[in-house]
């Protein structure tokens, strides 16, 4: 019974929870239970080393150290229920910190000899304990999350676990670029294929021709069927390696609006995969929704489809889809809705008088939307003469108001801060937009920087992308000349310190702030987004999403290039937590927010969140060092 109780406890505590019960049971036999009254100094800095790994059963400890030659105690960490201490001293032979019980604390003690055996028999345990990398956490956490959905009978699971090579049609019609259209059609008929891949001289895929292409591009367009297939094929063809997970291919299909993707093995054609293959694989797919959206011809039809699309998130979550992919899928679907409303608006008001580009801002710009999505958008149009100006401005005024109302109908709430194209300030010709950016960069004030951040995450969503590119090039040229701007960003970043004390909530008496919960968006997501933005702006990197930005920083010269893995996992994890939290609220019919309570998190989740906070603190310290002169 002592054993059962302890096994039960440890089976919820990482890394012990990853041991088989039989081993855990054996391990528990060698444990002792110790009690440390509040205030007890359990280990002294530079004192005797620990001969046990201590696992906190109840209570909490404070870990601190006094740097040499300084009298000030520095608190390194708080540890609480389910966490361990004494490891470094156990392994390293030196006690570098002082550990004090901040509450009456009971601990399970794992003796050094048993620990050493465990190190040998289960390297993963040590790795876990020693990791100061988030990698392991995230992997195991996602396993935990996936474990929750094991009961699911759905075959949708395959979409997220299967590699595209496993479901693609092994055989496909392959033709050279100079093959005639007629020959191609004959081959496809003979080989019973719905598409033919067109390859270049060295066998690389250069284009694709599908059944429906024959209808639209050949027959309907009256193409001579003796012409080369290269004249009517779609190109370039999107190809993926056979090892890519299926759902990534789905993403690509959504992104490029295509139905066929070539699958390659080491660069050579292996086959073709179609959206039909995926639809067969699963009943409710992002693609199905996407097509549903595409088929709508009126706002009245679009609105219910758009609202329904969010139901897909539940499926994705249950499948254990990576959270960062969930938000990308959400964003792709939202993009579709926005483009559809733009199309409807163009039909309503006639073609725009001058080229324009619709910009998604903020989280929409970064493709990081979760459930609650309010509109963050802007519109840039080509410069016009003074004479034309009133007419053009009037067109876009009506156009953008239609957009705002249409999107509200589709379930996107209006932006409370009025960052919308329907606000005349944010519907301007390119020259005016350039002036905005010049002002934000050359005359930064804390308020202006905060206000303009959302615009630095813009992404062209529809229309003439060259306008967006022009604007981007404009501000990228300015940034190096005004170091104070990045300094302001850095300053803002380091001021939002993650509340490590949140975890002390149980262990340490703290007043007020986090008693009711923690705002994940502000305290965990925002700092990571800010970190990625700061360093991409610094390096002139153009990626829009936080994950892509981090990836682009990998191996580079920036401060965080070595921390990319950790930052990606941290972002993955906090996003997952946020999406889960909001999904639960949605299911329960509660209003959606970003506030999580500590007591709703599992041990593993708490620890992962804590690691993310520590990582943010670490980067903030480095940023503070680098941008010293700008930190207020």
């Amino acid at each position, binding site marked *: *019974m*002592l054993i059962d109780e302890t096994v039960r406890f440890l089976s919820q505590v990482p890394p012990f929870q990853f041991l088989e019960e039989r081993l855990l049971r054996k391990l528990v*036999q060698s*444990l*002792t*239970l*110790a*009690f440390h009254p509040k205030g007890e100094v359990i280990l002294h800095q530079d004192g005797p080393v620990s001969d046990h790994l201590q696992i906190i059963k109840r209570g909490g400890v404070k870990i601190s150290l006094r740097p040499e030659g300084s009298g000030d105690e520095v608190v390194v960490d708080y540890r609480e229920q389910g966490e361990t201490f004494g490891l470094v001293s156990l392994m390293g032979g030196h006690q570098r910190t002082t550990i004090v019980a901040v509450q*009456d604390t*009971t601990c399970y003690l794992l003796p050094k000899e048993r620990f050493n055996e465990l190190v040998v028999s289960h390297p993963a345990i040590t790795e876990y304990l020693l990791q100061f990398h988030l990698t392991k956490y995230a992997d195991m956490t996602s396993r935990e999350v996936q474990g929750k959905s094991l009961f699911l009978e759905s075959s949708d699971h395959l979409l997220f676990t299967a590699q595209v090579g496993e479901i693609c049609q092994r055989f496909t019609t392959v033709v050279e670029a100079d093959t005639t259209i007629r020959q191609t059609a004959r081959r496809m008929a003979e080989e019973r294929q719905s598409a033919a891949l067109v390859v270049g001289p060295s066998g690389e895929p250069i284009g694709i021709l599908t059944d429906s292409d024959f209808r639209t591009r050949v027959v309907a367009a009256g193409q001579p069927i003796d012409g080369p297939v290269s004249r009517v094929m779609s190109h370039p063809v999107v190809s993926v390696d056979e090892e890519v997970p299926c759902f990534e291919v789905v993403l690509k299909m959504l992104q490029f609006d295509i139905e066929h993707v070539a699958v390659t093995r080491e660069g050579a054609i292996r086959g073709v995969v179609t959206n039909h293959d995926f639809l067969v694989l699963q009943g409710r797919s992002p693609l199905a929704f996407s097509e549903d959206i595409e088929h709508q011809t009126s706002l009245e039809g679009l609105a219910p489809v758009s609202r329904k699309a969010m139901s897909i998130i539940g499926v994705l979550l249950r499948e254990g889809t990576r959270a960062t992919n969930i938000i990308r899928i959400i964003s792709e679907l939202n993009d579709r809705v926005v483009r559809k409303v733009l199309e409807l608006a163009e039909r309503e008001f006639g073609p725009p008088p001058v080229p324009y580009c619709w910009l998604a801002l903020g989280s929409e710009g970064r493709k990081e939307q979760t459930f609650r999505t309010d509109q963050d958008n802007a519109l840039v149009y080509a410069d016009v003469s003074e004479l034309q100006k009133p007419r053009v401005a009037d067109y876009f005024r009506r156009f953008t108001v239609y957009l705002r109302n249409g999107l509200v109908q589709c379930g996107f709430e209006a932006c409370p801060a009025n960052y919308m194209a329907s606000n005349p300030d944010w519907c301007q010709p390119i020259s005016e937009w350039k002036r905005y950016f010049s002002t934000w960069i050359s005359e930064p004030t804390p308020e202006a920087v905060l206000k303009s951040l959302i615009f630095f995450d813009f992404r062209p969503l529809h229309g003439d992308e060259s306008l967006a590119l022009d604007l981007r090039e404009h501000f990228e040229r300015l940034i190096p000349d005004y170091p104070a701007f990045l300094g302001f960003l850095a300053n803002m970043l380091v001021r939002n310190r993650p509340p490590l004390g949140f975890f002390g909530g149980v262990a340490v008496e703290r007043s007020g702030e986090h008693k009711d919960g923690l705002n994940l968006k502000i305290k965990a997501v925002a700092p990571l987004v800010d970190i990625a933005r700061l360093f991409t702006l610094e390096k002139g990197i153009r990626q829009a999403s936080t994950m892509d930005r981090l990836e682009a920083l990998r191996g580079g010269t920036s401060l965080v290039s070595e921390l990319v893995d950790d930052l990606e996992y941290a972002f993955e994890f906090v996003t997952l937590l946020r999406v889960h939290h909001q999904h639960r609220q949605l299911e329960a019919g509660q209003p959606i927010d970003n506030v999580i309570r500590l007591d709703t998190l599992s041990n593993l989740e708490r620890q992962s969140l804590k690691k993310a906070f520590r990582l943010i603190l670490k980067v903030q310290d480095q940023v503070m060092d680098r941008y010293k002169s700008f930190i207020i």
Partner: protein
Amino acid sequence: MGLMAWSWAKLGWGPSGADLPIQDLHFTVLDTELTGLDARRDDIISIGAVRMQGSRIELGSAFQELVKPRAILDGRTVVIHGITPTELEARPSIGEVLTAFRDYTVGTVLVGHCLSIDLAFLNRDARRLKAESFRNPAVDTLSLYGWLRQRSLAHPAFALELPAPSLFDLAEAFEIEVEAAHSALGDAYVTAQLFQRFLPLLRQAGVESLRGLRRVGNPRRQLANLTAQEGHTHF
């Protein structure tokens, strides 16, 4: 030299052993389940215990044995809630269990809540079986509680308005989780955790050796300790 005398000597007990620091002692924290409290007719039906080294409870050390009540042998009916006579019949006899338990307690200090009752039954049965009785040093957690309460320590548990708090009153006051109440091993584990919480308080109060521990935790002194407290409150 008998086994027990040998281990006493090895542990440095005897005349000088009394000075051993508490941290170096081994404890057997025990609890027995009885058919009733009448030493003339009632029996031990189970013994549960855990060992402690100093202040640490050894989780792998549990002793847990069910005992066939002697009444069964005498042909008397024993009604124990939830246990059928057949089940009782299948248990080992007190003689076998006592032998095993004596081996288990060799070289340790016995600790229990209201320990004198447990000891009375254990030694009664030992005498009947003409076996060696339990002469280990003994410490009672209720005596310790009474003594600590006289020192009016700051801990809120000492403000309990109970003349003789039960193990579970104390467990609650000291925030000890009770998983399996009223099994001998479960209660022994709770007692061990209670004793574990007393040890730092005793150290604060200057009790640091076996001698001191035996003096303030004497099983026969629980009443004296508790009544002294009553008197104290009248000043």
